[in-house]
């Protein structure tokens, strides 16, 4: 795509593109890092509710101010996000309604209210209102220098806090009860990390939009998890995947007309997840399948060798040749293994197409027999 390459080129030359590019990279990194905590703490769905609940906050802020102001929009989003969260907690604590249901209620109700406000604003004769609809599905092209500045500062601050409380947050996520016994204030840490996750969500709303931000929070982390078993590495990888999805998605949507950035970024991120699911060497489905096939093959070889052993020991010489036909009557015999067994030196084939056990093969089969009957 000519326009795609144009965009990437422009990233380095054009000021606006640079700003946008930087913004999406910052977003990706912050989403990746804090999203890892959201995933590990099973707060995935909460992120969705908070993102949707942010919409009325942004709309109300606009109604109050009359102009678009990223910082105040952020604050408005956080406020309604927090109100929504408190209400969710209230519902789960005081009624028999389950968390999932409560999330769904808050999500849809707050969002619906936000839409009402949006349509109200549409009727106002205010030239500034055009940008608000972009908060639904995101539009990275609207990122200004001050927006990126806010994202970078708040995002950077959040990452700094994560770095400072690294071990505490890790402990809290893995074993909060144990953390309590060590004397750590788990309430404080809980509030801290949840707040940081809220900030990460709200920072991404301009780029990815309220409807899809939660997926942007989860996908880089889900992908990263497949490549490592160490939390530190996972978080760094998630940051990288997030940035990659951010910049790639933005580039793709910029080169197409009428395309919101939210859905494209999410699709790139989800693609990364799918690729990780399949191709990761440690957890991936492909390597799982390969390992399965390998072990099945090994099992078949052992069985075949055992069968041959059974035949061989009935003769006074273990290496007396026998016909292959003979083996067909035995269960556990697999013709496909013969070549491998020969290559590995366990059996030999005589010129007149008969098989016999080698010394190596005999000893190996003996070992297997002993092991099996231990």
């Amino acid at each position, binding site marked *: 795509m000519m326009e795609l390459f144009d965009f990437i080129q422009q990233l380095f030359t054009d000021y606006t593109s640079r700003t946008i590019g930087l913004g999406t990279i910052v977003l990706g990194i912050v989403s990746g890092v804090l999203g890892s905590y959201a995933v*590990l703490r099973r707060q995935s769905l909460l992120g969705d509710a908070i993102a949707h609940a942010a919409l009325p906050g942004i709309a109300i802020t606009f109604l109050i101010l009359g102009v678009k102001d990223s910082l105040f929009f952020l604050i408005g989003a956080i406020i309604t996000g927090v109100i929504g969260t408190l209400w969710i907690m209230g519902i789960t604590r005081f009624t028999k309604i389950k968390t999932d249901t409560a999330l769904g209620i808050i999500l849809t109700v707050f969002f619906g209210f936000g839409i009402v406000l949006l349509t109200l604003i549409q009727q106002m004769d205010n030239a500034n209102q055009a940008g608000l609809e972009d908060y639904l599905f995101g539009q990275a092209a609207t990122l200004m220098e001050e927006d990126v500045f806010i994202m970078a500062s708040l995002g950077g601050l959040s990452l700094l806090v994560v770095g*400072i*409380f*690294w*071990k*505490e947050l*890790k*402990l809290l*996520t*893995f*074993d909060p*009860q*144990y*953390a*309590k*016994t*060590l*004397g*750590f204030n788990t309430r404080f840490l809980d509030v801290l990390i949840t707040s940081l996750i809220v900030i990460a969500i709200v920072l991404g709303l301009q780029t990815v939009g309220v409807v899809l931000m939660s997926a942007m929070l989860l996908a880089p982390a889900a992908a990263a*998890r497949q490549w*490592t*078993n*160490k*939390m530190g590495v*996972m978080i760094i990888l998630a940051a990288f995947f997030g940035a990659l999805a951010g910049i790639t998605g933005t580039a793709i949507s910029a080169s197409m007309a009428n395309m919101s950035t939210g859905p494209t970024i999410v699709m790139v991120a989800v693609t990364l997840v799918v690729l990780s699911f399949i191709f990761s060497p440690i957890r991936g489905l492909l390597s799982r399948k390969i390992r399965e096939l390998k072990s099945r093959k090994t099992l078949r070889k052992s069985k075949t060798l055992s069968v041959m052993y059974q035949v061989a020991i009935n003769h006074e010489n273990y290496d007396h040749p026998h016909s292959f036909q003979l083996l067909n009557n035995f269960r556990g015999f697999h013709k496909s293994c013969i070549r491998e067994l020969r290559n590995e030196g366990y059996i030999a084939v005589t010129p007149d197409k008969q098989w016999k056990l080698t010394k190596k093969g005999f000893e190996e089969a003996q070992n297997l027999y002993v092991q099996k009957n231990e």
Partner: protein
Amino acid sequence: MQKPYAIEVNDLTVAYRFKPVLWDIDLKVPEGVLMGIVGPNGAGKTTLIKAILGIVKPVAGSVYIYGKPYHKNRSRVAYVPQRGSVDWDFPTTALDLVLMGSYGRLGWIKRPGKKERQGAHEALEKVGMLDFKDRQISELSGGQQQRVFLARALLEDAQVYFMDEPLQGVDATTEKAIINILKELGKAGKTVVVVHHDLQTVPEYFDWVTFLNVKKIATGPVKEIFHDDNLAKTYGINFQISEATQS
């Protein structure tokens, strides 16, 4: 002056939504004792440990460790939770898990350094898991996971240990290894309290036992109080030791 009890619990009452789970528990455990806590399901054994450690808030009661209120003497206490209380799919290695045991002494923000890593290696060796230090914890067997949990607590170098069903679902070798470590702790003057799931092995493993069923039925040296009468009071009228040892 009389030496304070290693663990002293007074009038501990815990309720969940106003349904009592533990009632008026009094416990005085002297130093160096290896004590098992037994009782039927739902008797409140895990709740007792959690209430003592402040994980669960009691309706009433107080806990003292060596004469001081528990929350002022945390550094002297180590905890091994139930194995099922964490998600073992969490991305961390055995060594990293054990290292968490040093977090308490490090306090806020400070990171574990060489000294702590050294300690973690030693703790892993003590439980026979040094070879697995870089293994992802989900790849460990139940018994191995339990040992790693124990190593984490050992790293805390505490004087009082609370363990919740550490022998539940582990293989025979691990069970023997853990009991040996506990007995060594006892010999070193540490006090160990274990919620135990298997009545049969109580006389063999523990010096003291506490019978619990919402209320404390009895507590004391196994030789004195581990008999049919207390068993009946805890588990029900027709329960007898002979039944327990036969099954």
